[in-house]
């Protein structure tokens, strides 16, 4: 469903993402982990079509994000780290705008009511987005991603700024989307969340994929058989040189 081949994103002399490969199949959740500045957000923004890759290929449902933008993005949902919403639309209008763009108005009313209720946005539906708190905006951003029938979902730090109830609901939503066959890529710093949600994780450091695998594979690789993902992550990122010398995947 989502295939990334040799993705490179370069800003002048700085290579933010270097030769990134990944494949995410339907019904799979992959966590993108890494320290600050590792290239997670840049990678995600390239996949979402916000940034144009310097080289490499990104295929969404078989469509190239650069050459077949419209078809590729038709099945894509992206939730940015900082909610970027039209502040002078109401909550309801924003959801409708996204649904109209994706041409999914047939199921709009039912989906909208369900999302507004689940994310406690019901009483805010007529309010301008500008008046929402940061957490509310994040919920709306997620709701916009779920309002259309995306089968590739990208989440950039989706739980930051969301209250515990909202975070719980979002996790359930991600698992629901997975059960419906969506391919999901989550960039996060919350390692315990990644541990609970993700089938596989990819650890990036300085734009390079250090390692990819299930938690069990990572444990085995790091020689920490009974450790948590947090401990494994810290070990691997601290011991970057050693990890970088190992084959990816």
């Amino acid at each position, binding site marked *: 469903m989502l295939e990334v081949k040799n993705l490179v994103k370069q*800003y002048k002399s700085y290579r933010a993402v270097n030769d990134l490969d990944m494949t995410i199949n339907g019904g799979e959740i992959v966590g993108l982990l890494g320290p600050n500045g590792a290239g997670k957000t840049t990678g995600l923004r390239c996949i979402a079509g*916000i940034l144009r890759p310097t080289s490499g290929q990104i295929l969404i449902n078989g469509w190239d994000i650069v050459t077949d*933008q419209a078809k590729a993005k038709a099945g894509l949902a992206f939730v940015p780290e*900082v909610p970027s919403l039209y502040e002078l639309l109401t909550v309801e*209008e924003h959801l409708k705008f996204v649904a*109209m763009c994706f041409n999914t108005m047939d199921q709009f009313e039912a989906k909208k009511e369900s999302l507004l209720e689940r994310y406690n946005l019901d009483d805010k539906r007529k309010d*301008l987005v*500008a*008046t929402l708190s940061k957490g509310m905006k994040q919920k709306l951003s997620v709701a*916009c991603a779920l309002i259309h029938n995306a089968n590739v979902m990208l989440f950039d730090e989706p739980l930051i700024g969301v209250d515990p109830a909202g975070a719980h609901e979002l996790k359930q939503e991600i698992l629901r989307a997975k059960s419906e066959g969506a391919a999901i890529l989550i960039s996060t710093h919350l390692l315990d969340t990644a541990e609970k949600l993700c089938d596989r994780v990819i650890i990036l450091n300085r734009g390079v994929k250090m390692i990819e695998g299930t938690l069990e594979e990572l444990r085995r690789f790091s020689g920490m058989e009974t450790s948590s993902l947090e401990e494994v992550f810290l070990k691997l990122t601290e011991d970057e040189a050693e990890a970088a010398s190992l084959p990816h995947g």
Partner: protein
Amino acid sequence: MTNPRRLIALIFAFGWLLRFVLFPSRGETRAFDFDRLNRATSLLPNVDLGRILDALVFAAFAFISFFLALGSLSTRNSFRPADVDVLFPTPVEPKLVLVFRIFRDYLLTLLAPLFFVIIGYRPASMGLRSLQNSAADPELIQRTVRIAVLAWLLVALTWVCINYAASLFVNRSDLASNRNRRILGWGLAILVAGLCGYVAYQATTFHTWQDWVGLTENPFLRVVFFSATFAMWMVHGVVHSDVATILLGAGGLLAITFLCIKISLTQAGWMYDQAAVKGFDAIDARKLQQSGDTIGLIAAQARQGRVKAGRLNWLSKRVVRGPAALLWKEGLIGFRSTMFLVVLFFAITVFVTLLPLLATNDRSGAGYVFLGFQGMGVFMSASALSQAGFIEMLRRVDVQKPLPFSFSTTVFYEVLAKAIPGILSAWLCSILGIILSPSIWQYAIASALAMPSLAVLICLMTCLTTILFPDFEDPSQRGFRGMMNFVGVVFACAPGTLAFIALIAIGLSPILCGLLTLVINLGISAAVASICGTQYAQFNPSE
């Protein structure tokens, strides 16, 4: 004081003010023509120069007071976020900070008339000098000017203190202050409206200049403009050598000043609270205004609860599909943000285009005038309205770029949405032009054909320059972008416009000329749109 240049500027500024107080009449001299003055005043029976001087002084200080009083109920906005995080937690006494702020604002207020002082010092000084040379009591003129400047210093201080006291009192975050603010706000609005109505009504009964002088002696006005009254008493006292009146005027201003400082100091505890809650909203708003970001400005007002969603059901209930949703979105945002500007430019375009047709019966050349004004109106509305929209477009790349459209489709619909007001005003003007002056029908149709393409082209150029110079917070880039936008618009519109003029000159039908201009403009638009699409695709907000 953050740098030496500011210090030098401040010293220079206060030097000018000080010089005016100490040497009000220094400069070249020329004998004052008292004969001429006498001849002029002889035309006015029973002239009382003292009364006229009082009236002029009162009017001048009333005018100044009016402007100093503006915004007295709004939050003092001189704090910055760093003040809240760094200054406020320190043990510095809020009262001390407040006194410093009052003093700083007072100095800034004194700078306000500097421009007029610089421009007017030399001629005013020469006039005073010649008056002094010719007057019976030269010292009196010197003293009068000095006391007038002193009155200005006191009036400015009084209003700075009044503004602080009122602002701190009505902007506290408690319910009573909300109520007080509403009562005071409405009270002042009614007072100003009543005052304007009263003056307007009185003016209808005036026949001579003495009636106007009499108006300045009206007790109601004297009470409302109390600071002007006190200032006038100070000047009046000097002219009539009446020390008690001078002291009464100065004492009145000082008494109000001390009272307001006392009220401000009792409210000092609320100052940090107010600054932290909404103190820098105004700073943000000013930045947004300077960058021409109307949508950001309205969004900031919406965050403060000052803008509501409004009743736009007729639009928000509509369903469109695909990229047309971008037009729908732009319509809703436009109605909530730039509606006032749209209506204003729409009205200006219609007015300037149709006025020549209404103003004269001479129809020779009316078609050319119509087209000229029409083009000007479309240029104004398209360039002024589109900038804010493109800033918003770039700010929302995270939501807009993942939409299922190619970048060129997104750019096309965004540009079209911004050009719609210009297109509609062109068509409306054409229809009205034909109704008002049927003989120009060919020009009106030519305009209906060519002007929409002109609006699209202008919006496209604005889009391109906004993408190329996207840092709207950087003043130097903002200025450069404005210049490049203007140059770009001129170059892009020149071929179509010049072709139209040339073809008209060789006697081709205006409709055909309009059609050819449309084709040329669309061709250039396609080329610019292609560049815009590429640039938008490469646009990275993080860079």
